[in-house]
């Protein structure tokens, strides 16, 4: 298993501001991902955080809005920029270990409310 610490656990932010979410893993992992879970909906993959290179974004998500850093194999940040109320969601960090056991492990999530 993997222990993932994600912070902040929740925040209330003013529109137009930015919030940076941190994700710390207790061991080195190659694959780290960021998801968004909008109210009452499933998880949507935002991007794959690549160590040492630019993140790989899914359709509908762009770097200017969701810049991601991955300075090493145990840490990543996701910034939600120029926030609007539509960005109110739970943001989740996830890792998957390579090999046969492919289950994803998740941080506890960051519940963001934009007012």
């Amino acid at each position: 298993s993997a222990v993932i610490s994600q912070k902040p656990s929740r925040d209330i932010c003013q529109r137009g501001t930015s919030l940076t979410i941190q994700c710390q893993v207790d061991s080195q992992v190659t694959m780290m991902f960021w998801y968004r879970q909008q109210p009452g909906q499933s998880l949507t993959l935002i991007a794959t955080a690549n160590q040492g290179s630019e993140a790989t974004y899914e359709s509908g998500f762009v770097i200017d809005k969701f810049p991601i850093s991955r300075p090493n194999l145990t840490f990543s940040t996701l910034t939600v920029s120029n926030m609007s109320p539509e960005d109110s969601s739970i943001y989740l960090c996830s890792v998957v270990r390579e090999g046969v056991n492919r289950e994803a492990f998740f941080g506890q999530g960051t519940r963001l409310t934009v007012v």
Partner: protein
Amino acid sequence: AQSVAQPEDQVNVAEGNPLTVKCTYSVSGNPYLFWYVQYPNRGLQFLLKYITGDNLVKGSYGFEAEFNKSQTSFHLKKPSALVSDSALYFCAAASGGSYIPTFGRGTSLIVHP
């Protein structure tokens, strides 16, 4: 493309009764299948997975799931539900060539005392 369907938004069951949460999937090749549970204000917790082997997979908290290749289903089951099982349950699937699972929309399980 991968897809996962959870046809029920909500499942209601009385405590002590068996429960089933349905999931069907579409992936290319052999599937990797997962169930996760999300309690309020918490992240997702892994329950069980199917990769290969026996079609009946046993997981945490007394849950099990049955892989049915012909019906492309992976329903979650428990013989006797507990009130504490009330939570949001997500089914996920990945193809052999991808480490990124696709999630279903989730099913809210409500167990009544």
